[in-house]
């Protein structure tokens, strides 16, 4: 078929009513702009909230849960094998939170090709002594360098330097909330009491803010060595082994495997943070719904404008048909007009959407809860731009299809004889 001709006629028809064509294109442009800005902003926010938790959560965590032994004597007795045995009021045995043989486990993990990095950790419950009162808290003994490299520890230390934990002996970084509660400034020494009753003075070298206030009120960090010393254990004492994988999606499989090999409990990130994934996908869903609604509204605008154009151009359509244009040619002409509006509006929409995203990206956004953020977060993923342009083409095509079909069915005899 003669596409340059159809293009030529479509162009002349739409330029003859260029104001309406422009309004239709601006409608599409506006909706694509909002679609891009909305999705970019929403997903920027999603990424931020996800990173708040996911970045700091190990993909697989090895630990020992304190619980009763699963292999109780009665279950081992052959006489009762076929029975359903109810066991109550048994206590956990001597097994403690320590991961046995941690050095060997860490060595094995280091050889695993799927593992990006390992950060051993120990957790101890302590009391911070503030004058007459004691504040309960948790001391996390961490491998400072590994923690910073794998779990962006440094990002959350808002005052002081995280490397001081390693370089200054007997030092501690307090959660901001906890520090406020104790009125502890950097350089001050705080007293802590361990669960076994020993007292230790530790020097405050920094604050950290996780973004979750409740956490900041109880958590604190020291180096692994300091923490081991606090509770009087050797340097093999580790309660958690945090593992970061190259591929996050492997976590459930890997965690099952390790649980079996090392005989510890293992938890993967998907299980630990199921609710975050739900939140993210719901937010995405809402922004898609709003964006697509905007596009559909723009589609109705195009539909109306094309319908009007067809009523105005009845004579033109009749003459075209009388001089040998088939119904399908007329249809192509009007669909070309619709899609041109879609491409024009869509592309300018992408451009303005990008500009609007840049604008949002530069709006100051300071909040105590999110120390790493200074402006609103925006995601510039190319995916949203592709979805935007695809949807603009689909909606404009559909909006053009019905008027175009109507135009193709116009009977030239009715029009020519009607006058």
């Amino acid at each position, binding site marked *: 078929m*003669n596409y340059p*001709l159809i293009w*030529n*006629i479509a162009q*002349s*028809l739409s*330029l*003859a009513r260029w104001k309406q064509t422009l309004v239709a294109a601006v409608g599409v442009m506006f909706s694509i702009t909002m679609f891009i800005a909305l999705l970019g902003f929403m997903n920027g926010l999603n990424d931020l909230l996800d990173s708040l938790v996911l970045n700091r959560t190990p993909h697989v965590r090895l630990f020992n849960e304190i619980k009763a032994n699963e292999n109780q004597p009665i279950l081992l007795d052959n006489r009762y094998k076929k029975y359903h045995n109810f066991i109550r009021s048994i206590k956990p045995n001597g097994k403690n939170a320590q991961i046995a043989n941690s050095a060997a486990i860490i060595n094995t993990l280091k050889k695993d090709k799927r593992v990006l990095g390992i950060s051993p950790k120990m957790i101890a419950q302590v009391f911070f002594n503030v004058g007459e009162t004691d504040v309960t808290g948790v001391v996390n003994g961490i491998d400072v360098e590994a923690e910073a490299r794998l779990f962006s520890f440094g990002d959350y230390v808002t005052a002081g330097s995280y490397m001081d934990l390693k370089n200054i002996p007997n030092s501690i970084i307090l959660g901001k909330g906890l520090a406020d509660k104790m009125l502890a400034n950097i350089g001050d020494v705080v007293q802590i009491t361990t669960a076994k009753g020993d007292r230790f003075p530790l020097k405050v070298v920094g604050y950290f803010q996780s973004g979750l206030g409740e956490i900041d009120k109880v958590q604190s960090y020291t180096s692994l060595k300091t923490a081991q010393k606090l509770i009087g254990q050797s340097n093999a004492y580790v309660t958690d082994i945090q593992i970061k994988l190259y591929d996050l999606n492997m976590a459930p499989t890997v965690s099952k495997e390790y649980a079996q090999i090392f005989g510890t409990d293992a938890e993967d990130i998907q299980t630990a943070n199921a609710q975050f994934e739900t939140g993210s996908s719901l937010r995405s869903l809402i922004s898609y719904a709003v964006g697509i609604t905007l596009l559909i509204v723009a589609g109705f605008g195009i539909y109306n404008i094309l319908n009007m154009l067809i009523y105005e151009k009845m*004579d*033109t359509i*009749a*003459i*075209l*048909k*009388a*001089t*040998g*244009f*088939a*119904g*399908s*040619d007329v249809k192509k002409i009007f669909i070309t007009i619709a899609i041109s509006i879609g491409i024009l509006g869509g592309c300018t929409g992408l451009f303005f959407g990008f500009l609007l995203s840049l604008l949002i990206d530069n709006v100051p956004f300071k909040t105590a809860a999110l120390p790493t953020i200074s402006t609103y977060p925006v995601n510039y993923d190319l995916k949203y731009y592709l979805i935007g342009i695809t949807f603009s083409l689909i909606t404009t095509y559909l909006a053009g299809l019905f008027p175009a079909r109507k135009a193709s069915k116009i*009977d*030239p*005899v009715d*029009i*020519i*004889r009607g*006058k």
Partner: protein
Amino acid sequence: MLLEAKHINKSFHDPVTVPILKDVSIEIPKGQFTSIVGKSGCGKSTLLYILSTMDTDYEGELWIDGERLTGKTEAELARVRNEKIGFVFQFHYLLNEFSVLQNVMLPGLKLGKISHQELEHRAFEHLRKLGMDSKALKKANQLSGGEKQRVAIARALINDPLIIMGDEPTGNLDKKNTEVVFDIFRQLSEEYKQSLLIVTHDPNFAERTQRIIEMEDGRVI
């Protein structure tokens, strides 16, 4: 035989069935300048639109250039109109969005048989023949009625049609322009042996054509 219509019947069904054409059979040989005359409502225009392939709602058979057109698809008929029939209407002359030259070229572009350049040259020749070459680059809506009709005739000629059909082509023109248009038709008929089939209610126009088909109450008399 260029055009044959065999036993054409047509009725309007809204709201009661009214027969418009009753068993009309006509034959138009090549090169003839024919006019169809008759009173208002006698069915002469209806017949023309059936012969032009635009109206397909009839009983009977239509043959043009040895090809049976009855029952063909809309797209096939559009192709026949494009290639073999030239049109001149009473009111609907030109597309206002295009220049005079583009209007003339449009059916040729649709046919796509010759290059754009050649087509432009040919359109220009037709316009010159009709004395419209000086207006070629004007927009269609800047012309007077008589001028528009001359451009419409040039457009009808662009694909060298077998026949030119006109539905009261002078019905909306003053006496002077009517004469101009009639002279063009006569010139086409005499010099180029162009077949013409013109519906008119102007007896003065009709009696100067080679053959008059008179209609009354849906029949040829």
